[in-house]
């Protein structure tokens, strides 16, 4: 079932790409194990782990009791004997019970033991809104993890990156909180999977070049930014878009280079703005580009409110019009 290797081009969803990444990693390294709530025979509520139990057996992909802290703790313990667990938190907010395990152990164990006990764990977190889910099902908690030293934070915005970033997250020795934008799960792409493997984590990618202003974003907001850039083009503005791919590490070089050309930037993300990841990006890029900036870097983010109910979520989320408004302020 190592499908990636011999298929030239195939149309897959992000769910498929993630599934394939898990399969390929599990095939390559028998220490990779996958577990969480309903990830076995059901294949996860989003089907990302579909068929893994069938292919690799119950030993390699299995259901756990509903105990997120316990799941995280078990994963940590397993690394002592060389396993490389990939765990799923069913929805973003349901990872909160595991925060003590993640902040006090996952993030710190390598450091505490001076590298003797690395914890190569990937925590997959379906995150964000825009899918009309009821309360507690649409949080975006990446900033909590981004500010925790010892953790890495990845988030793909494309089907290809979903594959590549997940593969890389599993392969490396640092713990990675892997944020999967739920509303992109069913996005499709033509994918010669192994060849798409150009995404280097920690390396942002320029999704659109632009001379007038730069949008800096990640995950679910990339498509909104691309749409905004297109709309701006119709109004005569040449707006570039940068996809960070990982929040930790943050590729400030790529972002700063783009900003240096345009002198104007907007950071866009879906999670709340106050003390969000956008604040860090803004502060760092301002420091790096202070003399070149023509206007203060703007932020277009989720509002500083609990995630709204489905009928109201569009008021919360960054939208093309909010980005255009912000562009109008600085252009």
């Amino acid at each position, binding site marked *: 079932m190592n499908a990636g290797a011999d298929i030239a081009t195939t149309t897959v969803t992000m769910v498929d790409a993630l599934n394939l990444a898990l399969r390929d990693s599990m095939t390559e390294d028998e220490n990779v194990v996958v577990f969480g709530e309903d990830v076995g025979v059901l294949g996860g509520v989003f089907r990302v782990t579909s068929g893994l139990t069938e292919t690799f057996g119950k030993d390699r992909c299995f259901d756990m009791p509903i*105990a997120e802290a316990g799941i995280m703790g078990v994963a940590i313990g397993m690394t002592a004997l060389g396993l490389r667990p990939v765990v799923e938190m069913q929805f973003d907010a349901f990872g909160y019970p595991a925060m003590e395990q993640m902040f006090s152990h996952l993030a710190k164990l390598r450091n505490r033991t001076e590298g003797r006990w690395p914890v190569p764990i990937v925590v997959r977190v379906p995150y964000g809104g825009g899918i009309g889910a009821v309360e507690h*099902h649409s949080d975006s908690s990446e900033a909590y993890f981004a500010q925790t030293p010892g953790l890495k934070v990845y988030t793909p915005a494309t089907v290809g990156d979903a594959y590549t970033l997940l593969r890389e997250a599993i392969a490396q020795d640092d713990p990675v909180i892997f944020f999967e934008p739920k509303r992109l799960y069913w996005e499709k792409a033509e994918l010669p999977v192994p060849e798409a493997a150009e995404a280097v984590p920690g390396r942002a990618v320029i999704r659109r070049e632009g001379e007038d202003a730069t949008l800096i974003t990640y995950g679910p907001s990339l498509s909104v930014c691309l749409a905004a850039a297109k709309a701006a083009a119709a109004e005569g503005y040449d707006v570039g878009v940068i996809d960070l791919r990982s929040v930790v590490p943050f590729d400030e070089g790529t972002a700063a280079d783009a900003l240096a050309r345009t002198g104007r930037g907007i950071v866009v993300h879906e999670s709340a703005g106050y003390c969000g990841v956008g604040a860090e990006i803004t502060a760092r890029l301002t420091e790096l580009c202070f003399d070149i900036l023509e206007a203060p870097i703007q932020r277009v983010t989720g509002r*500083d409110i609990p995630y709204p109910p489905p*009928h109201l979520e569009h008021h919360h989320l960054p939208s093309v019009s909010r980005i255009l408004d912000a562009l109008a302020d600085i252009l």
Partner: protein
Amino acid sequence: MNDRTETTLDGYWTPPTALTLVALRNGLRAMIIGRRLDRQASNLAKQGYLTVYPSSLGQEACQVAAAQALGPDDWLFPTYRDSVAMFTHRIDPVKVLTMLRGDWHCGFDPKAHRCAPHSTPLATHCAHAVGLAMASVKKGEKRVAMALCGDGATSEGDFHEALNIAAVFKAPVVFFVQHNGYAISTPSRRQFRAKSLADKAIGYGIRGEKVDGNDFVATISVLRDAVEHARNGFGPVLVEARTYRVSPHTNADDPDRYRNRSEAEPWLEHDPIARLTEYLTAQGRLARDTLRDIEDAAEELAADLRRRVMIPPEADPARLFAHVYADPPPHLQEQRIAVLSEEYVA
């Protein structure tokens, strides 16, 4: 730990405090109405009028008994699965469904109805029930809090902490676990290994009961006893009701991926509504007319629910900002103004 399953799977359990005929008829009525509203809600979800709906089909004895075991000052702490308990607790069905419909998170006034919002984060509301019960004791009141949860939720640390704290403080709480065999796709044998969830009571030093959750008579009797035990200062009670989740986890779930349909058969044979109907009929206590009246009332309520849910809810963005804080910080006030002015523009 008392086990009232054995005695009831094939018969009917005789309650220590006799239930009045009125209580049994009220139970039957609420179960029939509850099932009808539950079916309506499932349909509304399929048709897109609700975002999602977790049905409690087959669990009506538990749902109704939970609400009806409570006294007039007692509180209910339900989960997403417990809409029928909330209907029975006399909350307007449309307001119960607000969260699932997606116009707001909670549609009713929790204090007026003595009912917490549906809890989605599993088992977290168990401690809320303990807090309320402790506050009640502190205030010299005699309220009992009933926390509902599923078999899956018992694996959470929050469940344990709540039971243990309640035990230490002898808080008047009834923890009512509807053991319906599944947590989404995970069968309860992969959730815990004990013979019975009620066995956990021993480890907390509290009273534990196991009951056939498809037997309304047994379930309400056990719950009433538990409520009075708690109310009278004897501490919390853990009640496990063995039942079965006949429906998918929610309308979005596909149970064929993880269980055989035939598995439901014995449970359908022990359908709680059929059982109580049969029992009352056999005893000559249920006239055909009464049954038809109830069914008519259920139809009417279902039609009313459908009609009202189909009216598009108002979606005023001002609501988003109105109650984040009693006294909002300046950055939020700015955002409120921005959102509202966008509205005027649009």
